[in-house]
């Protein structure tokens, strides 16, 4: 469910792209410092976006030079630790842990063993993060439980299922300042809705093969993995309506250092991602992202 929220890189200015990369590296270092190698492995674009949103009205960013595995021989310019990065790192650990627990309970065979190992590795980082952000931890647990109940009941409403994940993500707005919390809540709600539905669409083939619950299949009564044009357009419409609402919310956030990048992500990155997911050509990019086999196979 990760890696859907990213900029449309060709439309970024070079300086904006370098900033974005520095933020990505900054979050990676933050995860490494606070939660060790296991924490670092869960780095994803979605939480880079979140840290940029939580930046607040600050119009600057401190940079420093760091070495890391991909940049072993030449130090890279990365964002220095900032409150927004710390919070985003903690949140991503909490979410990754509960997703891993979910996977462990749902899967069978070799996959179960694998996800059990992931759970064990994330246990300690999770304990630390949950101690720091108990409110977010609680809301993630509640929402994933809610989602689980809807999945078991084979919920036919796409919105009802997406609502749980959207509310989960929008609870991350609790870390924002008073002035922008309401706006961020709405923005993250719709980003969460988009991610959930797009991910469901991308997983259609796999879910139908394994007989798992899939909200898109349940909503449109699909039994074959290739939906007809009408279904595809209906999904596109509902996703683009969410993009509209996310964009309207984004316009109300105070301008910050990251505004050019976040605007690119919402106005261009999300629609582009939607086009690719619906065309079946979406590949969760970035070799540094956690490899998820079911996401890697959508490119056919």
């Amino acid at each position, binding site marked *: 469910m990760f890696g859907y929220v990213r900029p449309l890189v060709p439309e970024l200015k070079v300086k904006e792209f370098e900033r974005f990369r520095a933020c990505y590296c900054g979050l990676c270092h933050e995860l490494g410092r606070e939660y060790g190698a296991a924490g670092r492995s869960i780095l994803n674009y979605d939480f880079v976006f979140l840290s940029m949103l939580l930046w607040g009205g600050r119009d600057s960013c401190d940079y420093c030079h760091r070495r890391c595995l991909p940049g072993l021989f030449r130090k890279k310019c990365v964002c220095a630790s900032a409150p927004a990065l710390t919070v985003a790192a903690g949140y991503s650990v909490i979410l990754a842990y509960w997703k891993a627990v979910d996977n462990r309970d749902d899967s069978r065979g070799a996959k179960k063993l694998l996800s059990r190992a992931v759970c064990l590795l994330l246990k300690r980082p999770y304990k630390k993060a949950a101690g720091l952000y108990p409110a977010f931890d609680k809301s993630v647990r509640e929402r994933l439980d809610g989602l689980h109940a809807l999945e078991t009941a084979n919920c036919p409403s796409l919105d009802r299922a997406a609502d749980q994940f959207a509310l989960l993500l929008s609870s991350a707005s609790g870390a924002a300042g008073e002035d922008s919390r309401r706006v961020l809540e709405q923005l993250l709600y719709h980003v969460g809705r988009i991610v959930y539905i797009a991910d469901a669409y991308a997983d259609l083939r796999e879910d139908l093969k394994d007989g798992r619950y899939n909200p898109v299949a349940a909503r449109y009564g699909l039994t074959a993995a290739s939906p007809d044009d009408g279904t595809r357009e209906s999904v596109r419409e509902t996703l683009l309506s969410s993009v509209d609402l996310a964009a*309207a919310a984004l316009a109300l956030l105070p301008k910050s250092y990251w505004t050019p990048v976040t605007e690119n992500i919402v106005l*261009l990155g999300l*629609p582009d991602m939607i086009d690719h997911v619906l065309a079946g050509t979406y590949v969760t990019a970035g070799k540094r992202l956690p490899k998820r086999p079911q996401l890697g196979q959508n490119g056919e």
Partner: protein
Amino acid sequence: MQDPYKVLGVSSTASDEEIKKAYRELAKKYHPDNYVDNPLSDLAQEKMKEINEAYDTITRSRKNGGQSSSSGGYSSGYSSGWSGGSAYQQANSAYAQIRSAINAGNLQYAEQMLDSCPTRDAEWNFLMGSLYYRKGWLDDARSFFQRAVSMDPSNGEYRQALNMMNGAGSPYRQTGYGPPAQQGGCDMCDMCTAMMCANMMCGGCR
């Protein structure tokens, strides 16, 4: 009060033309039409007011300073907000109450009222659609709007709502690399749609 130049995002040495351009862009961005039925519409209205005031302040001070000013266009602004939709006649008082509850963001109450309604007519479907739109449940909202339109195809308000769900008048569409589509201009038809959309939910809030 904030520095009016900062509000418009221009330098204090900017020409009148530049200021007007910046103002127009912002006014387009925060226009009430983009926030119809949006839970954040009050914030957008505030922002719009801020922009209007800043623009007025600048044009006034420049006029007094002896500089030529080509004020006009939007200068009267949208600061007055939406008019109360006086033309709207509501026969059913329960529906009127639900409408104002949705407008006020009191969604739980509106949902209870709608659940207890005995009839499931076009208006009921339309209000359900509005409620779900406000909640962000856009797929269900669309289904309800569609049902409202099919039950009463002559109602312009229902049709506008459905058009809005289909992205008509959205300022954010068609900017990506997706399937090519023509860039949205603003012809009379769009304006008309936009005004009707703005008027759509005004019925209950008088």
